[in-house]
């Protein structure tokens, strides 16, 4: 089948058996790859209401058809599972080189179930699968593990997706890492992997994936290059030069970034603090070289070297915007060295920087309002903006070296429950901490954060943080007529994520080209109308997993603070309250779904097609 290896690998870690199954044309055509292909498989393979960390729980590591087949910006793979954090569907994607290497090793996706008796890693070498002992790697950091595996296999280029100590400890904020500093970070992916005693998936191979029309892919890539020189040239230039962190200062001034655990405003930071953490400023001090994911002409990454100061680092990934904001403005911290060091710690121990920084912010607010004593903090005087205390607490979490460090390692909700305190300072969507784009500035995000089947994500479709946030207040705060635009954005991003494109393709690729890439890769010949139904199906598939778990609209929650209840008293977001339920009503009305339950009606499922099993389960048809 063009565009795919056509093979799915199912691994049972309990009895160390593997089964190769065909990726059928129907599955590929209807669910493409990435998150929704994963949801389709887990829907069948995982019994309803399985605990995310139980042996029967499945973990999928899934490519998209663009991985390793040539389309520019098409290098992202996805990790899927049930989330131990939200209790519902979870997917998280990552760039670097791992996705393409996974495919070249012979499989479109690998699904793990069961639990190994002792730590293992799985090695796929040109289609051949072997279980390798990882006892000696258990407890090691991601960097130590990568070095050890590469030495063991005598191959510096193998692709490795792995967990650090965070995953081994089953932390709710454990990520799956690859390429040293790339993370499929959110929703507890690393905890699911850790629960299976699976330290790493290691891949190598040079298996060629056939595509329908190679010349067309070359032509589409040329079109992309021209596009990037044209209308979006300035945006490309910014991201190419400084990456996502280029806009940190803008975000802190405009109200986009979280400040002081979402309770502060731009006034809480000095102009210098806002400017110093932009990547343009940090690049001048630390930049060593550029970094780009596979087949990406934007290349928004960089590698830093921190030569001086208390936390020297030989090589570390440049902090993404999310990192700078979570360890910067969220904590009222304007110190670049500590931000870089905390970023390094998270990558090394395998933590999601978003949940980690948010957890520090929650602990800081609790401590600074007197909810925790200095003794409970393990002697760390975690005052707002204190860089030494921020680093000390980050180390305590990563090394699980104090009681507070161990508890905070479970992220905010688990920590609030453990101490039975600080519930009023939790800011999350269905339990997962919110990324650094404020829904009070870009209200459409409230719908995405609360009601996307994978809650609390800025990389899911909807009226996001880009142009929507800069709309005039009378428009964006009317909460009217958002449904169509919201749904169009969802349809587009579903295809982006499932195909394996980077989200920055929203500017990096010409409009409408993604479906044309899919048609050049595969034999599916999607029409424009097919494309709309495809996007709807991909979205509905993730949603269907949650429905099967018994989740309905009322089960998706968002914290009051992030929707301005009560509103902030100063700054650009002063007196703003978001009507998140109206936004969701608009969205579900556009979909034609039931407003109370978020159930898609029979007619919708029939029209979209390819979801007979959902029809059967919901309506017995």
């Amino acid at each position, binding site marked *: 089948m063009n565009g795919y290896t056509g093979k799915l690998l199912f691994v049972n870690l309990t009895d160390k058996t593997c089964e190769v199954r065909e990726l059928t044309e129907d599955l590929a055509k209807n669910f493409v790859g990435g998150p929704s292909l994963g949801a389709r498989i887990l829907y069948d393979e995982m019994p309803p209401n399985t605990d995310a960390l139980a042996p029967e729980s499945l973990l999928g590591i899934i490519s998209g058809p663009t991985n390793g087949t040539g389309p520019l910006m098409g290098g992202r793979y996805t990790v899927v599972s049930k989330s131990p954090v939200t209790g519902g569907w979870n997917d998280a994607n990552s760039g670097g080189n791992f996705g393409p290497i996974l495919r070249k090793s012979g499989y479109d996706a690998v699904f793990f179930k069961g639990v190994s008796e002792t730590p293992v890693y799985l090695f796929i070498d040109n289609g051949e699968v072997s279980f390798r002992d990882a006892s000696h790697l258990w407890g090691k950091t991601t960097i130590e593990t990568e070095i050890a595996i590469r030495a063991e296999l005598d191959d510096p280029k193998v692709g490795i997706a792995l967990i650090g100590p965070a995953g081994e400890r089953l932390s709710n904020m454990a990520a799956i890492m690859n390429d040293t500093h790339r993370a499929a970070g959110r929703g507890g992916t690393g905890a699911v992997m850790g629960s299976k005693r699976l330290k790493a998936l290691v891949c190598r191979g040079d298996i060629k994936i056939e595509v329908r029309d190679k010349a067309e892919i070359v032509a589409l890539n040329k079109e992309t290059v021209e596009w990037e020189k044209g209308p979006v040239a*300035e*945006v490309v*230039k*910014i*991201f190419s*030069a400084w*990456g*996502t*962190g*280029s*806009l940190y*200062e*803008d*975000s802190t*001034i*405009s*109200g*986009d970034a979280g400040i002081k655990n979402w309770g502060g*405003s*731009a*006034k809480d930071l000095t*102009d210098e603090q806002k400017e110093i953490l932009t990547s343009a400023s940090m690049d001048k001090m630390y930049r060593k070289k550029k970094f780009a994911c596979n087949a990406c002409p934007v290349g928004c990454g960089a590698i830093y070297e921190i030569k001086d100061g208390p936390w020297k680092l030989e090589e570390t990934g440049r902090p*993404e*915007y*999310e990192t700078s904001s979570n360890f910067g403005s969220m904590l009222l911290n304007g110190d670049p060295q500590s931000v870089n060091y905390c970023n390094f710690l998270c990558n090394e121990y395998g933590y999601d920087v978003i949940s980690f920084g948010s957890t520090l912010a929650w602990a800081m607010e609790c401590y600074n309002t007197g909810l925790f004593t200095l003794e409970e903090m393990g002697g760390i005087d975690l005052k707002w903006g204190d860089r030494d205390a921020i680093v000390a607490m980050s180390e305590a979490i990563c090394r699980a070296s104090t009681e507070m460090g161990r508890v905070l390692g479970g992220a905010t909700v688990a920590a609030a429950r453990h101490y039975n305190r600080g519930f009023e300072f939790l800011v999350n969507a269905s339990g997962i901490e919110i990324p650094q*784009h404020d829904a009070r500035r870009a209200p459409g995000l409230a719908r995405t954060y609360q009601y996307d089947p994978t809650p609390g994500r*800025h990389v899911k479709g909807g009226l*996001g*943080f*880009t*142009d929507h*946030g*800069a709309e*005039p*207040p009378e428009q964006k705060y009317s909460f009217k007529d958002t449904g169509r635009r919201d749904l169009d954005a969802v349809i587009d991003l579903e295809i982006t994520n499932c195909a394996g494109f980077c989200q*920055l393709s929203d*500017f990096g690729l010409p409009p409408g080209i993604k479906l044309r890439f899919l048609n050049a890769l595969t034999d599916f010949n999607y029409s424009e109308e097919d494309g709309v139904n495809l996007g709807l199906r991909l979205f509905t598939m993730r949603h269907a997993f949650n429905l099967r778990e018994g989740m309905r609209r009322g089960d998706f929650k968002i914290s009051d603070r992030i929707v301005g209840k009560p509103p902030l008293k*100063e*700054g*650009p977001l*002063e007196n703003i309250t978001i009507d998140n339920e109206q936004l969701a009503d608009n969205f579900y009305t556009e979909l034609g779904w039931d407003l109370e339950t978020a159930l898609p009606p029979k007619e919708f499922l029939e029209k979209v097609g390819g979801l007979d099993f959902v029809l059967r389960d919901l309506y017995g048809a």
Partner: protein
Amino acid sequence: MKVWVKFVCKDLTGGLANGEYSVPDGATVLDVIRAAEKSCGVTLPPDRDKAFQYILNDKAAQGYTPVPDGAKLYVLHARLGG
């Protein structure tokens, strides 16, 4: 009247300098940008302001928003993200 401006989106403003600019009473945010262009000898491409968003005295503003004397204006990228 005087308005203090910081061009945070430097890559889009062709060398417009941060600092204080004089504008007549009743001037808008866009008038301030024009004053900066004149003072710095820079001509921004037409429609460039579509790539901007503004924070004026700590509140979101539009190109048409009147600017009070002594105001502090930040000119930011309209497109955020990452």
